[in-house]
């Protein structure tokens, strides 16, 4: 069983919700990656999404775009991130999931990338520019290597399609909560709760909500309707401004009252 499946099985047994933060590898230099991962694990993260910078990230809003530019300017490459993950994997217990676009992987070579990612202990892949129609290019070979493809469904995906997509995966389903790109939002579509319920009803795997979630109150609201949340831009901002305590508060918002500090 893949590390992602195990973690969600444990959560289910203890009736807890997931919190998956996103960080950009190489933002602040690749040397900071280990300390950020350790900090997030200690703060209670369920898994960590690690962004690999790409020059043209069409699914990302300004905060993640800027983080990607900073990472590229400090010379971050996919090869170096893989080496770094391999180095720190023994001291990290939670799943590590790469989020990137197809082109850096294609330039690396899909087969080589999956082989190296597997050796480094990468557990999953989120590829926002790879819809179900094109995933044949990488999905089979990734799954053979024990790397989960985490698939996205959105507010525009018809329920039948959501069901088909959900049935392909074993880890969790990434339910995008806004029509749009990554980045903080003040409010959400009032139909969202119902949408997440519908997604949960057809999905055999856990459903995590992501895109636009930035406040503890968002987290508390979202986890009423699904199995957890993914928070990206806000985590990047808080690391950038050194407000680590606010990261802890955000993660704590996903925990049952009894465990909160």
């Amino acid at each position, binding site marked *: 069983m893949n590390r992602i499946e195990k973690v969600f099985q444990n959560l289910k047994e203890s009736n807890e919700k997931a919190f998956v933060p996103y960080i950009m590898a190489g933002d602040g230099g690749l040397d900071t990656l280990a300390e950020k991962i350790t900090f997030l694990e200690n703060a209670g993260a369920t898994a960590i999404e690690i962004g690999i910078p790409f020059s043209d990230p*069409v699914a990302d809003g300004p905060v993640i775009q800027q983080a990607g530019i900073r990472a590229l300017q400090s010379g971050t490459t996919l090869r170096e991130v893989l080496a770094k993950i391999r180095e720190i994997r023994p001291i990290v217990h939670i799943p590590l999931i790469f989020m990137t676009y197809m082109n850096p992987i294609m330039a690396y070579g899909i087969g080589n990338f999956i082989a190296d990612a597997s050796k480094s202990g990468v557990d999953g892949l989120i590829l926002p520019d790879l819809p179900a129609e094109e995933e044949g290019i990488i999905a089979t070979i990734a799954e053979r290597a024990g790397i989960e493809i985490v698939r996205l469904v959105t507010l*525009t995906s018809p329920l039948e399609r959501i069901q088909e997509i959900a049935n392909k995966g074993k880890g969790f389903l990434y339910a995008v909560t806004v029509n749009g790109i990554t980045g903080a939002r003040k409010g959400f579509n009032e139909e969202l709760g119902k949408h997440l319920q519908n997604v949960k009803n057809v999905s055999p795997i856990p459903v995590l909500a992501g895109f636009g979630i930035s406040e503890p109150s968002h987290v508390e609201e979202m986890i009423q309707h699904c199995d957890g949340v993914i928070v990206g831009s806000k985590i990047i901002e808080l690391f950038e401004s050194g407000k680590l305590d606010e990261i802890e508060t955000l993660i704590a918002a996903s925990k049952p009252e009894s465990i909160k500090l």
Partner: protein
Amino acid sequence: MTATYTLPDERGHFGDYGGRYVPETLMQAILELEKEYKKAREDEIFQAELQALLRDYVGRQTPLYYADNLTKYAGGAKIYLKREDLNHTGAHKINNSLGQALLAARMGKKKIVAETGAGQHGVATATACALLNLECTIFMGEEDIRRQQLNVFRMELLGAKVVGVKSGSATLKDAVNEALRYWVTNVEDTHYILGSVMGPHPFPMLVRDFQSVIGNETRQQYLEKEGKLPDTVVACIGGGSNSMGMFYPFIKDESVRLIGVEAAGLGTDTDKHAASLTKGSPGVLHGALMYLLQNEHGQIQEAHSISAGLDYPGVGPEHSYLKDSGRAQYESITDDEAMEALMLLCKLEGIIPALESSHAVAYALKLAPQMKKSEGLVICLSGRGDKDVETVRTRLGGEGK
């Protein structure tokens, strides 16, 4: 092989190229677009409406002009110019913008988003939107806005909202990124009029089909004038829309050489060029697998060309396929060579071509002398040079020669 050419396949692939590498949020929109386009293609009323607009509004058909002076100068093959520069708004871009705007209206979409580099596609799209009463938002790199002030004003005059893009290199590639982001956010009531034969399926097919009027007319006009097909057809390539529109109707005519001319900028041995097919490698950008300018890590590199319309680090998937299959041949022309060709066409034929089209003229002038006088060569003169006069003046030191 080419006698049975039917690409793209039903998944939008041209061999390995093309496809739909887009965020899931856009999948419904592009699946719906594909379905509606296929219906519109078979719909006689839609086609008649488009034909009538192309004739009465755009001014088609455009002439196929025998350039006698240019032919004599080159001293080889007979040179014809397909005069897309005579279209309303000054370039071939209107063929596609009008077709897609009609399609959007048919689909019940009231809002349009588009990207533009030099502004030609933006002006054409703003024009089509004004005509069909659609709300129009155009994304344009800040760097291009600075270089093309007059086109920005034109778009605004036509009622479009022009939004500056500061991210990345602040040019065409970044305008496409931002237009895609806007579309993801507003997908429910907005259609994206992509300006070239790129992006996710069905765009490369759809833009090619709307631009094929260029090649269809050329084929028929050449047959009427010469009683045979041309031996060679030459067109410039940025994303590849005028060339694809010119090439497509000739693909099955294996005797016709198809030559695409990329921008070599300061030279293909420098890092300042836009020759994606000549110097790039396959990868995924803006929704499709195609040839790209990228570094070894898969980061997209900035393109350079004197002509903003060719200043794009990728070339559409069908061209990528035609290159690998050998059906089309791809060459490149530097900034200097394009400038020289522009001035030559002004003086010899009294036609100021766009800097983009000047690349095709420059290559044709290298090729024609190597061809027999009995042979014929058609250049796709994709646009007029009015928009480039300021660039040319600055380049010549402010006062011409």
